[in-house]
């Protein structure tokens, strides 16, 4: 189940392709449902779809209530089917609502999916990322959204799908509850999710000034800058720099976590890092055990010095890339 009305469409395709490849067992995905704007280029849409067949549904506006009516129709057909959604805003809302509306089973942020004989089981993280739960799903249709931290997104989604059905939907009364709907595109995405080198700041930054100082250090050493949820919730840094289950799921080669305690919800956002360095003055911070290299000291002094000694070679590296 894909939403091509938003610019994260390619990411949804790559995540679901990666999930199907790495995190499922005994599942054959054959059809994609793609919501798109009426004016969208059909060829381009079909190119990204990670399965052989596609149903294209054109919409005047990307509104979830409208999409949901379409989904209810699809899911109401009585077929035993699994409907997979990416774990973005669209997917985590619609998987659950579709499952409920069709009288099936729903689950958000699934990490893995197995099908053996008649039985379908899923795994997902619970207890704020401290535990993994396994569920047996009992009632079709199964509407699941995929955790954004579950699979490595596929590099290529591979094939180009064939459109087996196309329809266009008029907006009905379902959006009558809402007036003056305006979509404000987010600022140019900081490339946290694709950055090869990230500096992440936690509560240990102590203040807005501390966060600013860290952001400057990040710039000097050539790292993208991200923050934990408490930092963003205190408005010390914009929400767009949030790392973790409610923000960016990063996978840099190198991640320096400074003043971060290491709560699972944050750690999920950096756990795919190739190499993690933690800098925290608290020797008991849980992040240390989840890092490759640990410095127990004042992050300010460490980063300051690091930016002094590493500034030159890094700039040289970046220039080469350009």
């Amino acid at each position, binding site marked *: 189940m894909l939403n091509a009305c938003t610019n994260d469409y390619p990411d949804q395709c790559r995540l679901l392709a990666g999930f199907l490849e790495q995190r499922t067992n005994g599942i054959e995905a054959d059809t994609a449902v793609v919501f798109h704007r009426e004016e969208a280029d059909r060829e381009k849409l079909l190119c990204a779809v990670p399965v052989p067949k596609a149903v294209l549904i054109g919409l005047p506006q990307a509104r979830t209530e409208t999409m949901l009516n379409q989904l209810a129709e699809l899911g109401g057909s009585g077929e035993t089917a699994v409907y997979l959604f990416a774990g973005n805003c669209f997917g985590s*809302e619609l998987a659950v609502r579709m499952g409920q509306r069709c009288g099936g089973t*729903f689950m958000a942020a699934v990490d893995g999916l197995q099908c053996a004989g008649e039985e379908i089981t899923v795994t997902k993280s619970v207890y704020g990322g401290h535990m993994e739960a396994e569920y047996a799903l009992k009632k079709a249709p199964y509407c699941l959204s995929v955790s954004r931290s579950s699979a490595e997104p596929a590099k290529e989604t591979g094939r180009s799908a064939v459109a087996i059905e196309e329809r266009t939907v008029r907006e009905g009364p379902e959006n009558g509850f809402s007036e003056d709907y305006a979509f404000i595109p987010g600022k140019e995405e900081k490339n946290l999710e694709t950055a090869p080198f990230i500096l992440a700041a936690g509560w240990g930054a102590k203040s807005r000034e501390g966060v600013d100082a860290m952001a400057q250090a990040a710039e000097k050493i050539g790292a993208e800058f991200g923050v934990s949820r408490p930092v963003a919730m205190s408005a010390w840094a914009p929400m767009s720099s949030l790392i973790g289950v*409610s923000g960016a799921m990063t996978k840099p080669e190198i991640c320096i976590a400074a003043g971060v305690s290491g709560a699972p919800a944050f750690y999920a956002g950096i756990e795919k890092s190739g190499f993690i360095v933690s800098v925290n003055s608290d020797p008991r911070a849980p992040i240390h055990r989840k890092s490759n290299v640990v410095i127990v000291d004042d992050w300010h002094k460490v980063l300051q010095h690091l930016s002094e000694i590493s500034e030159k070679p890094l700039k040289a590296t970046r220039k080469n890339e350009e």
Partner: protein
Amino acid sequence: MMKLLLPFSITPDLEALSEEDWALQPDLKVDTSFTPLDWNSFDESALEMSLKLSDNGAAGSFCFYRCALTVGGMPSDRFLKTLAALKFDELVRVDPGDADLRFRPEVVARLIADFAQTQAHPDFILMGRQTQVGDNACTPLLTAELLGWPCVTQVTALESADEHRLRVTGAVDGGTSVQTVSAPCVLSIGDAPCTYLRVPTLKDKMAYGKKPITLLKLSDFPGAEALLSSPNAELRSLAPIRKEREGVLIEADTPEEKAEILYRDYLKGRLNRL
């Protein structure tokens, strides 16, 4: 007057648990009873946002009726009393008894929907998008479905549009949505910055904090209770997630020396390969 229903939950502080605390009890439970309790942070945002509606200028003069509802044991009463002192109009606790509702959002949602339909009759339901323990992220969505109401998700800001409508800001893929929403509607609260719940004064605690809490039982909601026996998704197992790495400690006398070792032995080569 605008009627708001605020279902909220109380959560143990999971970050206070040590490694051995994650050892599992026989019935797939984690013993969190030794850990202090706190508001679920998304619900805390919802509660504070509902109060902020009365704060601002002329729009603050609109009239609100706030009903807070929680499903939980006795320890939740302290939190309800805080809300009473913050002048919430109605406080309800549903005691789940022995029922294990951690992974049963459909039961909780049914209960909330039934309460809304038969007792509270709210214009809007405001609640956090998920809790920590169950991590289900379903309850507000299911509540909307059960009531046949629309739902706005990932809400980050609220203000009064007029006496009957709210101006709602929410996160959507690729940006932000802003809309004027008419009742009835479920608002699922996401990452809303600067929404710590305010603190009532002792005088308000004395004046309002003794407002009685309506105590209900799960059996008062037969629709919800009936769902208990046959979950569509049945919990099979729970296992602690360990994510350990080697954690090599860089030892030196000064932070500068540590930074140098980090750069020389661990970062330089890796950075050059980027």
